[in-house]
């Protein structure tokens, strides 16, 4: 699971959970795989991110590079920053770990890089 997915996922499907965001991360194994940097794509993705959540998660998994806590206004032209974002968002794969609901502490396993968001019928 990549951080871009973590940035979008919630646990609000659980009974009694309102926002369920951001999910807490437990990392057991990380795999890093370099991929093609596409400047336009990253610039397009940044406004869709919850920046603060992204930076906290990137720092937690130790791949934050020089990401600033607050997003700079002219990020489209800052290639260094875009490359750091690309690396943290798309090149780092959480291969084994857990996602934890911030409200109920319900755990969702990540195995072989695939998060399992299935819940039991009585949790809905």
């Amino acid at each position: 699971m990549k951080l871009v997915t973590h940035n979008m996922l919630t646990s609000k499907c659980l009974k009694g959970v309102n926002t369920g965001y951001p999910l807490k991360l437990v990392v057991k194994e990380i795999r890093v795989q370099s991929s093609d940097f596409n400047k336009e794509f990253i610039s397009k993705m940044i406004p869709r991110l919850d920046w603060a959540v992204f930076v906290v998660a990137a720092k937690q998994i130790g791949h934050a590079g020089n990401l600033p806590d607050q997003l700079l206004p002219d990020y489209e032209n800052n290639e260094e920053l875009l490359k750091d974002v690309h690396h943290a968002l798309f090149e780092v794969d959480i291969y084994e770990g857990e996602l934890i609901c911030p409200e109920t502490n319900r755990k969702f396993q990540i195995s072989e890089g695939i998060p399992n968001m299935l819940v039991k019928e009585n949790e809905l």
Partner: protein
Amino acid sequence: MKDKVNNFKTYLFWFANDHVDFRLSEIESIIDILKTCIKWVEKPSKKPYSIVDLPSDTIAREIAHRSVTLKHISELWVSSAEKEDLHSKLKEYSDKVLKNLINLRKASFKFNIEVFCNTQNYSEKIKKIESFNYLPFEGPVKLDNPDITLQYFEYYGVDPNNIPKKPYYLFFGKLIANSQRKIIHNLSLKKRTFIGNTSMDAELSLVMANHAKVCKGDVIYDPFVGSGSLLIAAAYFGGYVFGIDIDYQMIHGKTKPTRKQNRHIARKDENVLANMKQYGLEDQYIDILVGDSSLPLWRSDFKLDAIITDPPYGIREATERIGSNHIHKNNSQNENKETKFPSKVIYTFHQILYDLLYFSALHLKLGGRLVTWIPIYIHYNEHNYLPEHACFSLISNCEQILSRVVSRRLLTFEKIKEPSNEELKLCKIYNNNFREKYFNYKYNANISSSGEYQNSDSFPIEKNNL
């Protein structure tokens, strides 16, 4: 003023004889992607060709570069219903235009003849080529990669049981570009690492990606991802893809192995990512999740560029979502175990469509497209029974016949407004009870042969609380 229009040249689009109903909407979607304008002289129909005015050769090449229903695009020089007339027109064209194009005349060339709905043997072919010997081409003949390819087309109608003596229409022109049909071969399911029993074939997946207007850098989502066939086509056109599926075994590649001869060996490295790697598209793979797409899993302000999906119809793939018909006691023993197989209930097709439109209204960007299939029982006049949503306009509706009794339709919706809370649920889905009809074919065949079909069978369902 008129000059602008006169800059347009006339081109002949020659289509592959496959998926006839998808041609027009595919080309129109590509025109949208290229942000250009064209003028149809003759729109795509059952005929293998259509005639179009385009602003430039470059546009023609770009259209051919995206299309998979096309075979090739040619610059149309002359056309006629009579052979003699075609030759006299071509002679005139040759004297007026070709004689002055020195470079063209010196270039290496070859002849290509397309005959639709008839056959030709070798000597007939040679005879046809010789009949054009008045053309002023002096360059060498080169069959492999020539500078220009001259195209001669004979159209004998579309009824193979009733082939006329003379062709209905003849065309002559110069090849501009071949289409991308070779990628159908490259992405063929036959050689793919991992497929499931309802994997979409490469051609239709590519057609769907074109309908969805997938562009480089778009984020594409499939809520019923399965073996990821639709995402492969979307990634091929530059989309960044992710998807979700309720089937844990499928996503983790633990169901029966893809290849029959290997059925006795457990699956290894068979998953969507392995497929993406096979085609060198792994950089565009975001993630695949296991989960129930009928549940709200995403941040509500998360926006997608397109949603491409083939939901289960309940025939070869089960239609399921998490739920239970029984009231459960909380059993605390299982709490630490990972949920892999929650109990599931039937998720009827019209509920799937409702949820899909609701999800798309919420998560698609404005102008983004939802491309999905619905199964149809052919005996019923289904035009009135397509889903409607306040935030979507139906762009196209193309039919693929599957058998004598069933077909499926590819629906392309475009989001035309951001929904208010009420509008989100303003959705009309007609329950066509496809699954029931399919499994009760005999009963239905009786109804249709007696000519009585009752509309009340397809009552509109509006769900107001989700």
